[in-house]
């Protein structure tokens, strides 16, 4: 009986799966077109899955092995099942292989089950709770069904009742694993995920045989010249189809949730829920069935949307509230952590773009900052002619005068901020000590456009960027050095699309290079214990984790690392315009970060970003002093030993003070 039933079942479920897949694809196809090389993507998919995805998954060894066993077992079992039971090719190794595959899968599903016994808060519940049972049902029933096929049990073992029972279990398993894969359900992730990897919007993130992928963190430009082109994302269908596909790939593992600083601070954002809401919107309906942690302070079930309905309502509720989108610090912790390599930040900025460019609804100080950027080219509304006031006594060489220099020192808007001026002065002191041929743009410099872009004001970003690019194109220089990772990121990763390609160095990288080249000499560190805070836009955005640590090491500092450091560093709360939009939460992100610092017992936290400095210094009753790497280096400078040649007198005569 099984012989007849099984092929039918398998064929039916496969057929249903195909129909489901078509429906799913239709859902995705609601999105806007996107240029993707489908065949190349499909060809690259296995590698992306096995190498890149697993690279992320493997950060959790147990889960990684579990997934390898379960997923590997399943894929093998499914294929073999079709061969063995669907086409009746049970002879020889195939049957045994199927037994082994289903056994492996079963072993994996036991681990899945164990994980589901007391699941951490980040995991979604609901249908996901039945997944281990479904996995077991599938693997066990396949195993059992295959036993007769390889002859371990008699062909007609048991009664028809047993066979029927087995089939029921198998139907359940097949239903979940095959039908559910395309019709919705936990296993959807496998189907959508595979295609998502194949058609990912940032193919450059993945490694190829030729080498490592890059971090590809720059936002993609909007076409503003086309008056009909939509500005950002209003409805789920305004996303590109592969973005929608990406949302659909989410496994709801909640790793993003676990690392999201806004979520931890009790601000109304949960990246996982956001992705799920996009899925709800794509298919239409309410979020009532969502079974994970809600947005802090926002009960589940009150929001609903459809593919062509607004994501954020002008008034009242729609799919997502605006404050959810404005809570994001764009720190990319979620993206970095996502095993499915979903691009949360792109999506959030896409939606912010619509709110800013179409609704004119950037919250709190957002509108003021953007107006300032438009009118004065800096977010504070300061006189553009006052940009160099801080350096009146430094006699900085101007590009306008020199036309060329080895290094263009990009100052950033920190030039207007007394705290950051100390960092800048330190950096100048260091550059002079190392005899670096540098110059600044002076009053010709404008805000890089970072904040405007993160706040969704692509128009202001592009206006600033284009004018900066025009200015930069007047001069010749080898590289840009800046102490602002945000400028670094924008200049290095986002100006390219607009025609400005530059080699940009964060000052820590540059200082490390100078030190390695023997151009800087330090006296030994005498202070207390030091920790280092990785700025998101330096670390996760640009992969620079080592240079700052190398500089600190050169100073004789042994960094007492925080638990969350490096690529897992916790954001200071200062990115993405978050301090400007200032969405309230239960606590402040910088306070939490200072808590991390306190745990290390460090008396000093070294930073490399004006935003981080400002945020961390803003913590009341902080246990540690906040100092930029440039300041530490400037303090430690000593003249070169006599053998390396004399320092020129003029250097000494320049303002030595950091104030």
């Amino acid at each position: 009986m099984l012989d007849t039933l099984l092929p039918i079942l398998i064929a039916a479920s496969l057929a249903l799966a195909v129909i489901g897949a078509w429906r799913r694809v239709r859902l995705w196809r609601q999105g806007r077109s996107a240029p993707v090389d489908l065949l190349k993507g499909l060809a690259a998919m296995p590698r992306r899955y096995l190498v890149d995805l697993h690279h992320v998954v493997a950060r959790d060894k147990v889960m990684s092995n579990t997934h390898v066993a379960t997923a590997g077992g399943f894929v093998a079992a499914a294929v073999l099942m079709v061969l063995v039971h669907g086409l009746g090719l049970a002879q020889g190794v195939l049957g045994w292989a199927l037994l082994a595959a289903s056994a492996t899968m079963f072993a994996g599903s036991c681990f899945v089950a164990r994980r589901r016994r007391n699941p951490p808060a980040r995991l979604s519940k609901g249908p996901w709770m039945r997944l281990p049972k479904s996995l077991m049902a599938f693997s066990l029933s396949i195993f059992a069904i295959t036993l007769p096929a390889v002859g371990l049990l008699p062909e007609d073992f048991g009664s028809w009742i047993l066979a029927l029972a087995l089939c029921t279990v198998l139907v359940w398993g097949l239903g979940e694993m095959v039908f559910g894969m395309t019709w919705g359900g936990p296993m959807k992730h496998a189907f959508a995920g595979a295609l998502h990897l194949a058609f990912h919007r940032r193919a450059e993130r993945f490694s190829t045989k030729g080498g490592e992928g890059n971090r590809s963190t720059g936002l993609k430009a909007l076409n503003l010249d086309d008056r009909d082109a939509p500005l950002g994302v209003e409805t789920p269908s305004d996303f590109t189809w592969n973005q929608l596909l990406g949302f659909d790939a989410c496994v709801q593992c909640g790793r993003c949730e676990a690392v999201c600083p806004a979520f931890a601070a009790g601000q109304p954002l949960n990246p996982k829920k956001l992705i799920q809401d996009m899925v709800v919107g794509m298919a239409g309906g309410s979020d009532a069935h969502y079974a994970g942690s809600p947005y802090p302070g926002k009960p589940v079930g009150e929001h609903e949307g459809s593919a062509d309905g607004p994501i954020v309502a002008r008034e009242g509720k729609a799919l997502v509230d605006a404050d959810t989108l404005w809570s994001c610090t764009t720190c990319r912790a979620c993206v970095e952590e996502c095993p499915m390599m979903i691009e949360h930040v792109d999506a959030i900025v896409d939606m912010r773009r619509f709110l800013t460019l179409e609704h004119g609804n950037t919250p709190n100080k957002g509108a003021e900052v953007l107006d300032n950027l438009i009118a004065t080219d800096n977010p504070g509304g300061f006189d553009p002619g006052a940009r160099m006031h801080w350096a009146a006594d430094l006699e900085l060489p101007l590009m306008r005068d020199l036309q060329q220099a080895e290094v263009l020192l990009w100052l950033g808007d920190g030039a207007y901020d007394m705290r950051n001026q100390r960092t800048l002065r330190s950096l100048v002191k260091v550059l002079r000590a190392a005899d670096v041929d540098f110059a600044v743009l002076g009053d010709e410099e404008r805000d890089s456009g970072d904040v405007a872009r993160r706040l969704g004001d692509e128009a202001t970003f592009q206006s600033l960027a284009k004018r900066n690019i025009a200015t930069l194109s007047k001069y010749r220089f080898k590289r840009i050095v800046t102490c602002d990772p945000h400028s670094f990121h924008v200049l290095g990763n986002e100006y390219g699309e607009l025609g400005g390609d530059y080699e940009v160095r964060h000052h820590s990288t540059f200082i490390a290079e100078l030190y390695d080249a023997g151009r800087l000499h330090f006296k030994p560190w005498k202070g207390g214990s030091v920790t280092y805070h990785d700025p998101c836009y330096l670390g996760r955005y640009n992969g620079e984790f080592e240079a700052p640590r190398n500089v600190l090491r050169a100073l004789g500092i042994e960094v007492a690392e925080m638990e969350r450091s490096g690529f897992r560093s916790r954001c200071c709360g200062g990115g993405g315009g978050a301090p400007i939009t200032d969405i309230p939460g239960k606590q402040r992100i910088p306070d939490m970060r200072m808590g991390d610092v306190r745990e290390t017992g460090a008396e000093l936290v070294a930073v490399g970003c004006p935003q981080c400095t400002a945020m961390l210094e803003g913590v009341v009753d902080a246990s540690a002093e906040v100092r930029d790497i440039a300041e530490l280096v400037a303090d430690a400078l000593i003249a070169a030993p006599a053998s390396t040649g004399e320092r020129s007198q003029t250097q000494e005569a320049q303002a030595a003070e950091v104030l």
Partner: protein
Amino acid sequence: MAFDAIFQPIQIGNLTIRNRVVSTAHAEVHATDGGMTTDRYVKYYEEKAKGGCGLCICGGSSVVSIDSPQGWWSSVNLSTDRIIPHFQNLADAVHKHGGKIMIQITHMGRRSRWDGFDWPTLVSPSGIREPVHRSTCKTIEEEEIWRIIGDFAQAARRAKEGGLDGVELSAVHQHLVDQFWSPRVNKRTDQWGGSFENRMRFGMEVLKAVRAEVGDDFVVGMRICGDEFHPDGLSHDDMKQIAAYYDATGKVDFFGVVGSGCDTHDTLANVIPNMAYPPEPFLHLAAGIKEVVKAPVIHAQNIKDPNQAERILEGGYVDLVGMTRAHIADPHLIAKIKMDQVDQIKQCVGANYCIDRQYQGLDVLCIQNAATSREYMGLPHIIEQTEGKKRKVVVVGGGPGGMEAARVAAERGHDVTLFEASDQLGGQITTAAKAPQRDQIAGITRWFQLELDRLKVDQRLGSRADEATILDLRPDIVVLATGGRPYLEQHEEWGYSDNAEESLVVSTWDILNGKVEPGKNVLIYDALCEFSGMSAADYLADKGAKVEIVTDDIKPGAAVGGTTFPTYYRSLYQKEVIMTSDMMLHKVYREGDSLVAVLENEYTGTQEERVVDQVVVENGVRPDEALYYALKDRSRNKGQVDLEALYAIKPQPCLSEEGDEPLLFRLGDCTAPRNTHAAIYDALRLCKDF
């Protein structure tokens, strides 16, 4: 961006000044060796530049000619090329920190003394005597005029060759240039006097000669008066005319404006307004000058606070503010603004200890900052944390010495407990601040209070420490700064008794602290002639008492400095306080409800009496030594201070010796009664190495 106006750079001539804050010219009294700038001089200005000051104009009344003697105030001598290398040191030290430095150059004419150094014949347009220095002079001759004009040009050249950024021609304080300007002193009828143009001629020729010598790319400014406040002197309108006249030449790069003339004791006090004056009292004069000139205008005089400075600059009244005493009190003023530490700025209180020393030919020191002017000795403005072990330090006494000791020890990173018997910090400063016009001196305490709170010093107020409480804390170091108490028992005839009911005399402390009700008809006997007696007199008169203040010294308030006694005199005369000198208090006795004070003339022995209802005696302070002797034998160092180490600003040797018993030091009035600065200096030099 806060303090935008302060931090807006400004162009003076070809020079860019990084901010709008200036340390204006004052006599530092630091140049020695015939007027050469010294290491001390250089370090004094280097500290200001390091602290962020935009422009320093050094060398108040630095002379260009040998008949204007520099020795009285150890000012800088620009009459010889020998000064040039010294200037190079000075310029480098300031430029290194991004600051700019100019020097004031002048010929003081009659405004000096003739009885010393080269015994010069002082010169003046019309040979009229100068009252403040009691100096006489000759009527200057044409040849001398041209010689001095040439000297100005040479002096400017020396400043330029020495790498300084500019010179300021002094045409203020009744120096030779404004002696020619002022009809009060210039009675000439030749081409150098009489008409406006004639009176202007000397200054104009100086300006032309200087400009011709140094060229256009060197800053030449002028410091002028805003209103001489003399009926026969230059009024504000006159000064506007003069400023516009010189400005029109285009040869002046900036004007510094000082409100008030200063050739009488009374007007002199205006020039450096003490704590009795309102903030920026003469700003309207500087603003008036600014209205009529194109060159930037600098104005100092009672601008001490960053908010005040910002308000003035923002208002557009002047282009740069002089915060000169403010920088003496805290050379890191600008740095602290930039570091967002405005509350940590040690703010000048206008005690004028600095300038009143200068007028006696003594080096400029700050009443509340012992590190100022002592940078060259290694006394720090910023106390570094110790790298040695953290100690338990107990300080007893919350007066200036105790507060400084506690502050410095806490900055070193030690665990500090401060005991103060009364319920507030300040010690005698608190008493001093009770007098009319003297409340600002409490600013000294105010800063210490903020700092001690910031440094989390354990302050035990209202708590009189005894031997046991101190030793219970198991201190490593005990610093006693317990001060003293009024010394009224010196002469039995005064009838002092510890029993307040019986005592015939009360102390100025009793009066100022409100312990004793003011009488209706009061005699104050002041043996010291310092602040306390004058303050008590002012206080009592303010409360409506009839007051006579008597001293055996040459005049009441004789020991109060030249810029401070006039404000007392204004107030006391206005309140009809009688000031009697040359009489000592012989005896006090009771007669009915009244008291009779018997006074004896110092020079004849003649006695006379006063019938009053209250006799207040100021006879100085007697150290409070009880606690010291109780602890002395329990201490490792037997309370002894190694004077050689102390005077050399070196650590006390006993600090590096091991032992169980605490170290014991005492400082301030509980050792021997001196003044606020002495107590703070004692504390700083002793505690900076804890």
